[in-house]
């Protein structure tokens, strides 16, 4: 089928099989909420299992299999669809019926007069709005999301995976049906399977399940715009207040020139060494040595070339923590890195990659990202590459990392400020 890509991992190791299907589309402020609402609406009922009770009965009958709506933001691509997991042991072959149900959820929803049911659309729309509003309930995640919104105002990367409240409010069943059909026709599709069946059989059952899939002009042009330099010469600072006793400090960096021809193993080791591993520069200094926080870690978005550092601190320690995090990044750039730190960072990445091979759900996420990055090597190769990363590689990768924005969420009485 044009624009339908399948990744299969055949193994008898697990008792759980995984099957996922994602439609890929450009992240866009106008359509993000519609796309995000869609899997939930489709998951409400199909032609043969018209409501959630009927779907639940079918899944319970398959030893408690799950099919969950999935909405992800991968760089500036939005991936929406379903992830299914089910018992995969000899004598209980559930791949066929699961593939059929995934296909049915995607292509044969419960409709009236060709339109998605208004009740289902309205219900899922309210749920989506609740979810968007509920971002604030998790203070750390909220701070992270707010940093990205403020840091990247001119980039689609600022758009949340779920879209925003205003566009979610505008969702109606007629327009959503139209959008759904257009999305089905134009989106590249990624299918992932991990389990005991061989790839030929997976392709066969998925081909059967997707017979009614309409294919129009496929939008192969989707991708992520990588900005190498910072927006202003000096980092922008954003602050916001909430009734929190612990302040949430989040710092956003542009990875810079290392993204021109990114070496994923080097970037992962660099991140592990600075703040993504344990221990790392940030945990050893900001947490253990200076006791400034309970947590401080970095995360790297390899698709967008943005690194973030998040930390929970006493608001009185804001300046001190910010300075110390900056000092630790400078140490990495200066090559002030011990052999021990290099060993730990390499081992952290390598071990994380090898552990992935034991976790079907993690493999699913890993391969979807690899496919979007256009990379064809697996976790074991990446683990081996990480073992070869040198101090010089890390210094080179870190050389152009620049702080672009600082966001601080704290408790107190002042008004929101910005400078």
């Amino acid at each position, binding site marked *: 089928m044009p624009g339908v890509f399948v990744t299969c991992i055949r193994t008898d190791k697990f*008792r759980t099989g995984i099957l996922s299907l994602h439609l890929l589309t450009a992240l866009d402020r106008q359509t993000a909420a519609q796309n995000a609402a869609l899997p939930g609406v489709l998951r409400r009922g199909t032609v043969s299992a018209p409501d959630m009770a009927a779907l639940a009965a079918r899944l319970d009958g398959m030893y408690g299999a799950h099919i969950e709506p999935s909405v992800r933001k991968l760089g500036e691509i939005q991936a929406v669809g379903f992830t299914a997991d089910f018992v995969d042991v000899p004598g209980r072959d559930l791949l066929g019926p699961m593939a059929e149900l995934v296909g049915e959820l995607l292509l044969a929803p419960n409709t009236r007069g060709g339109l998605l049911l208004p009740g289902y659309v309205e219900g899922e729309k309210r749920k989506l709005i609740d979810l968007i509003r509920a971002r604030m309930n998790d203070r750390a995640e909220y701070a992270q999301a707010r940093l990205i919104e403020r840091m990247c105002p001119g980039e689609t990367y600022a758009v949340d995976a779920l879209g925003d409240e205003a566009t979610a409010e505008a969702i109606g069943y007629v327009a959503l049906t139209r959008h759904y059909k257009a999305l089905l026709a134009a989106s590249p599709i990624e299918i992932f399977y991990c389990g005991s069946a061989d790839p030929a059989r997976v392709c066969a059952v998925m081909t059967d399940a997707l017979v009614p899939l309409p294919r129009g002009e496929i939008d192969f042009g989707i991708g992520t715009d990588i900005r190498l330099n910072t927006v202003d010469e000096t980092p922008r600072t954003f602050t916001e207040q909430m009734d929190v006793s612990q302040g949430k400090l989040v710092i956003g960096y542009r990875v810079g020139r290392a993204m021109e021809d990114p070496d994923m193993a080097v970037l992962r080791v660099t991140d592990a060494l600075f703040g993504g591993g344990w221990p790392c520069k940030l945990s050893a200094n900001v947490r253990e040595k200076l006791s400034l926080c309970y947590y401080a870690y970095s995360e790297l978005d390899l698709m967008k070339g943005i690194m973030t550092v998040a930390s929970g601190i006493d608001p009185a320690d804001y300046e001190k923590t910010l300075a110390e995090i900056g000092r630790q990044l400078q140490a990495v750039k200066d090559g002030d890195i011990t052999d021990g730190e290099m060993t*730990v960072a390499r081992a952290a990445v390598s071990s994380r990659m090898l*552990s992935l091979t034991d976790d079907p759900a993690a493999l699913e996420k890993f391969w979807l990202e690899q496919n979007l990055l256009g990379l064809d090597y697996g976790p074991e190769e990446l683990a081996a590459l990480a073992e070869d990363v040198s101090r010089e590689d890390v210094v080179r990768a870190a050389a152009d990392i620049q702080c672009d924005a600082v966001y601080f969420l704290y408790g107190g009485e002042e008004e929101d400020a910005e400078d």
Partner: protein
Amino acid sequence: MRRIEHPELGIELWQGTLPNGLSIFVVPKPGWRKCRAAFVTDYGGADRRFALDGETYDTPAGVAHYLEHKMFDMPYGSADDQFSARGASANAYTSEAVTSYHFTCTDKFEENLRTLLEFVSTPYFTPETVEKERGIIGQEIAEDEDDPSWACYLRCLRLLYGDGVLGSSVLGTAASIADITDQTLYACHKAFYAPANMVLCVAGDVDPEAVERIALEVLPGAKVPLPERDWGPDPGLEPAETREERTMDVSAPLFCAGAKLGPAATGADGLRQRLTAELAMRCLWGRSAPAYLDLYEKGLLNDNFRFEASYAAGVGHITLEGESPDPEAALAALLAAAQRDIDPAFFDRQKKALYGGFIRLLDDFWELTESLADGCFHGFDLFDAPAVLESLTCADIAAWAAERLTPERVAMSIIRPKEERS
């Protein structure tokens, strides 16, 4: 070490007890890259008062967790560094019932196991290092207090247990941890970290005999007397209070409802008690349950809704947590389900689904090792679960629900958005 085969589950379990009293469980997983070992002590946040060697101790809330933080300190530095140099990741957690130290690794399993057993059995605290940790734990407490769903959960426990040992956070409070010293930590370590009070659970492509050998080499050989715990007066079945509300910066009202289950059973009855509660809750409130689906469609619950049963300090309780524009209406409907009949075909599907969940637990190293530890401390064999599950009837579930879930036995804490203030 004894080898017990479970051909119907495609798994084997190695089990043994050392002369020092330590229980060991190993589930070999040929072909897997990852290994997980959990070294768990039957000592948690609820174990505050105890007697040992004729002396009684009354320790402040938060000691078990404080001790967990400081255990990683060794005379040579932090045990963390040993694990991370080998690419392993080690961590620990403290619940009301247990403290678990664990690592996962893809290389050098035996060295990592040695490090785990060494650091957990080596108390090394100084007044300075204990003092320094107070800031870090203080930040952890502050973070928890800012987390609305956690705050809601803690308030529900407070409603259920009042001033009892289960009525407050495992972390303690800034005030309760203020007086903890290195001497407090030494005393608690001596009382509760004796091998006879602990279990070692391992899953991975490992040699079970080697696990036993290393444990024999590293851990103290003598079996020492264990402390007598005092969890205070029987908390009974009624909640201390039934309702509490407060406001926070949240997007929609959050609720946590809870009910006590009474004494936690041990042995085969313990497993039966756990599975009965799990199956009953799934039938009443699971993703397929009529009550949940109806509330979901009415917009009174969303998929944040979750429930669990916990067992600590000799008793059990359940909690139901979620988000709802009208928590009282949602709770009333959830409790009404407990007094209605359960459709037998639906019941059979829930059993089948729970069985599927058990099969998959065997691949989840975290759940597997922690569940083995739980079984060990409560005297049941986890692998009896399929047979016990099979024996449960619709009538068992109905009786469980009707008896425990009457409105006067259920407490609920609610956190409302600030502007709502009701």
